[in-house]
């Protein structure tokens, strides 16, 4: 019969050793190469799909998601510039 404490100790030893072993594996070029390539290919496939969808929307004269993102980003940049100007004005008023 095994007590909880000894079970826990053995688990800790196992966990530590397994973690070390797995770390060597996940850092190994044998794993990194194929998994990196698979990830990149999956990402490229998604980007291609999105591009095809955007082309369709564009062809019927509608703004694409990317168009909207670009516009919103420009608005955010504009907000930041206005805040910069406000800060500068405040500084000048103080001086």
């Amino acid at each position, binding site marked *: *019969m095994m007590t*909880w404490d000894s079970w826990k100790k053995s688990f800790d030893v196992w966990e530590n050793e397994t973690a070390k072993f*797995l*770390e060597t594996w996940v850092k190994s070029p044998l794993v*990194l190469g194929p998994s990196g390539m698979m990830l990149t290919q999956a990402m490229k496939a*998604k*980007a291609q799909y999105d591009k095809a969808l955007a082309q369709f929307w564009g062809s019927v004269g509608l703004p694409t998601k990317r168009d909207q*993102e670009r516009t919103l980003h420009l608005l955010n940049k504009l907000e*930041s510039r206005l805040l910069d100007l406000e800060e500068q004005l405040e500084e000048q008023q103080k001086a």
Partner: protein
Amino acid sequence: MMLRVPQCNMPEQAFSRIKNLLGLAARKRPEVGVTPADVVHRENKWSLLHYRRATPARYKTPILFVPSLINRHYVMDLVPGKSMAEWLLAQGHDVYCIDWGTPGDEDRYLSFDSICDKYLGRALRIAAKSSPRGQAHVLGYCLGGTLAVIHAAAHQEKIASMALLAAPVSFKDEGPLAAWTQSPDFDPEAITRAWGNAPWPLLQSAFHMLRPTLNLAKAMHLVDRAWNDEFLDGFLAVETWGNDNVSFPGAAFVRYIEDLYRKDALVNGDMTLSGKPAKLESIACPLLAVTFEHDNIVPWRSAALVVDRVASTDKTHVKLPGGHVGAVVSKSASKGLWPMLSKFFVDHEARGVKTRGARSANVARR
């Protein structure tokens, strides 16, 4: 083989353990980040929080907390009793915190410079405004610490002193994150072209892969201490925070990987911020770098290197036992880490940059 029920000192503990484990799914999650705070600035998705004080602050130089971009800010204010913000307020500090918010799809274009220079700079200026010295102390955690270092390397006029908690500076380490990001088969731009921002589930699974057995170990620890309600609430609070991740703005992510991980630009002296050189050697403010011995996310050497490189004459490296998160939010942090941070900020309250050389210490757990 038979397994005896986990040892308990008292039958009540055994009963509590079973009751708590059975009711775990239905257990009320502790409320996180509840210390009252006012939003003093909002811009794009980020906001600046100013924690409310019942009495005027004893120390006039405020502390600005800079959290990581991919985790929520409330790690600093986890739950009452385990909140660094609450504790620092009680010591008489005035505390501000950046909440980076959740990036929207349009933030795929948000640059590293916008975050690290424009947003962080503005937060610092707002916090520093309330100080008679026109400066604030900076407390950066993890990637937030890296952002603080890069910002300080380009502009440090508003920084009274800087404390860094597990903030990676050197990215050429032996850890798995460095190996993955430096692998030629890993293409960060492919990720952002596909998703816009680097999606948080992808980042979270990468962190899980750092120690794939961690969830099992956590489960074991949970069973072991499930009788303790205080432990259970703390455990659930940390898990709530750990699973509440945010995506990394796309353009900023690509630059982060390319410049910091692949080129190690900060250490090599090639880092720039909005076109301005950001060299570690330019940092002259008092510096405290805290690293954690069992940190498997940020290896301690990667975070300690900053002390060797900055020009500050008042600089200290402290290596504490513990891991990346536990050492910052655990009960022992309120007896070791937090008082140390408070003392560092108090010591540098009246500037008077001390001229002691670099020190390094291993502080044993108390």
